[in-house]
């Protein structure tokens, strides 16, 4: 997909003999970036002490395991979504025209990009809110609440009503944490959960699906029977059991989601790849001596990628919701301010401080809604084969 399209004449056929040379320029770039990342990780892991920040410039940032995974995910997104879209502008324009037909989806896209950017960049500049009991239960700006609710009102008190201030635009929790800041941190948590788990799921699912389809026979049988079992275990209870057994850190969550959630993608990829494997171009490639791995990488994966991207977009909201549900049940990571956790915190104060549970819930709802709208529109735009 990258750069100029290969034509029969432009391909240097003597060069395709070697393993590495069959990689496209983009694959080589991704490989280099990946190696650089691994080197940086090793540096952080071996050289820098655990409690020392990894980088001090431009901001002090102690890169955690999760951050490494997140950076990897962003790189993968860059090399396998952004670069191909940029390199193939005519196709991109066509997708955009199809996508634009759905106004809600365009709106969703802008919303999600905003959430993604604010969530990724915001926490670097905003300090994680700490306990500040003297600021507890401040109402949101332009709203007021009976002055007995907050311990001391930061804004004015008019007629016994405490007025909200712009200092805390969405109010504060019972611990005096600013809800807007908590929401920004929650955006990061949701984006990490959604994107990293989806990357894991897509990678494993695509690998298993294509290998099963192209390998056939016993390989297919064993892999698909395993997928059957994984799918029959209701995801939520699998997560519940695993979180109970292994503890609920966000890193653990994402790993559990990623390693157990790929069943449906593998099935989808397998059935798609089975169809593609029958196509003439695969026969032609095999006829001219292409190996199994080459056919899978060069012909099957690119040709199933559209349906995988669509399915993945629809998987993301599920992961975000699972994470929020688990942290709502206080089985989540207590150190990470996730939306579910803030909702759970505000639950006992509903009758007095309604804003604590309401705002994170609104963001959770709109994010899930936006992913669903976008997935729907992507299916229409990317997948002309699919029946509407």
């Amino acid at each position: 997909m990258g750069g100029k399209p290969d034509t029969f004449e432009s391909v240097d056929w003597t060069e395709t003999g070697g393993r590495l040379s069959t990689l496209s320029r983009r694959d080589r770039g991704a490989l280099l970036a990946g190696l650089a990342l691994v080197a940086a990780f090793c540096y952080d892991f071996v050289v820098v002490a655990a409690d020392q920040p990894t980088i001090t410039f431009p901001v002090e940032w102690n890169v955690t395991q999760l951050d490494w995974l997140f950076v990897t995910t962003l790189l993968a997104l860059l090399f396998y979504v952004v670069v191909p879209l940029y390199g193939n502008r005519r196709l991109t324009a066509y997708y955009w025209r199809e996508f634009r037909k759905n106004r809600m989806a365009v709106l969703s896209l802008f919303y999600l990009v905003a959430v993604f950017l604010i969530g990724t960049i915001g926490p670097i500049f905003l300090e994680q809110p700490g306990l500040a009991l003297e600021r507890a239960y401040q109402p949101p700006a332009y709203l007021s609440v009976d002055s007995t609710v907050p311990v001391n009102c930061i804004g004015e008190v008019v007629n016994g009503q405490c007025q909200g201030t712009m200092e805390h635009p969405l109010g504060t929790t019972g611990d005096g944490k600013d809800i807007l800041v908590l929401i920004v941190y929650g955006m990061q948590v949701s984006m990490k959960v959604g994107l990293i788990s989806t990357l894991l799921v897509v990678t494993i699912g695509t690998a298993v699906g294509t290998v099963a389809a192209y390998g056939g026979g016993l390989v297919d049988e064993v892999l698909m029977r395993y997928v059957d079992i994984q799918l029959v275990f209701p995801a939520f209870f699998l997560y519940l059991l695993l979180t109970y057994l292994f503890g609920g850190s966000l890193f653990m969550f994402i790993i559990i989601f990623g390693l157990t959630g790929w069943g449906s993608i593998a099935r989808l990829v397998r059935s798609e790849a089975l169809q593609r494997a029958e196509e003439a171009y695969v026969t032609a490639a095999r006829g001219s001596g292409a190996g199994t791995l080459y056919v899978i990488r060069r012909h099957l994966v690119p040709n199933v990628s559209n349906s995988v991207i669509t399915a993945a977009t629809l998987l993301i909201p599920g992961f975000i919701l699972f994470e929020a549900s688990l942290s709502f049940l206080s089985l989540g990571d207590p150190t990470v301010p996730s939306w579910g956790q803030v909702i759970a915190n505000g639950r006992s104060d509903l009758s007095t401080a309604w804003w604590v549970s309401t705002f994170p819930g609104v963001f959770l709802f709109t994010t899930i809604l936006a992913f669903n709208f976008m997935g729907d529109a992507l299916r229409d735009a990317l997948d002309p084969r699919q029946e509407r």
Partner: protein
Amino acid sequence: MRWYVVRRVAWAVVATFLILSITWGLLAITPNPAAEQMQFQAAASGGSAEAAEEAFEARRGLDRSPWDRYREYMINMATLNWGWSQSRSQSVTDAIASALPYTAIYSIPTTILSILLGLSIGLYSATHQYTKTDYAATFFAFFGYAIPNFWFGIILLLVFGVQLGWFPVVFDSDVPIFGLGMVQQLVLPVVVLVTGTIAGIMRYSRAEALEYVEAEFVKTARAKGADGYRILTRHILRPAAVPLMTILVGDILGIFLAASYLVEVVFGIPGLGQLSYNAIIAQDTSLVLGTTLIFTFVSVVGNLIQDVAYTILDPRIDYGDR
């Protein structure tokens, strides 16, 4: 076809067996929270942590070979001897049996309501495609699908329980099961669950019915003067019902199980979900295991029923394919 059904049932048994084995493996490799607590207590009161661990293991039979433990675990599972719940001082099966009625009283109305409403709205949307009602229904479906159940429950409790005072905020399990009081306190949980599950049924029944709205045989029936209701029930619903079976059992079960878990915690209904949740909080491993496995078995059986019903209802299915 009989051969397929037999194979499918056998596969369900094998899957159950494998799930139980995997669960056993997970339990075997993770440290038991109760054992850790015991060690901590022993160490805190000046005793030896190792001695406490050994005593604990001997009492639980953990000092035997893995094969013996595995065999005993499997036999216990098969004979419904699911262990003793420490936090509730009763056997796990008793605890589950006492919680089951509370799960049933809201899940049965929810299932009936969401199937009835979902099907009728979906069929209506299909026959009135691209009207305002259709758009409203589609929007409602997206809304129901996207709204987090637990949050929706909280908001409804806030508005209708706290502000308006129409429904009780705290679930009272002493209210007689077949009475108005029970109906009143089940309205909100049922509404929350129905909005969550109805979306899938609506979207699928709309999509399935749309395939037949313009079909030749529907046109013929219309030309012969069949009225709208007859066309809908005899000519559209019948062929559409078969693929609908898949979603009815499979997906709904998945959403429903997770949703009911959260809804029980939010509304304080002492059903299976809350039992399981309290077990997790109390670190009562055998009860956690028992309650999670119940949900899993429901899902295994649901999938089995779905597949078998599918093959019986639709003779076109190719049994060689999966």
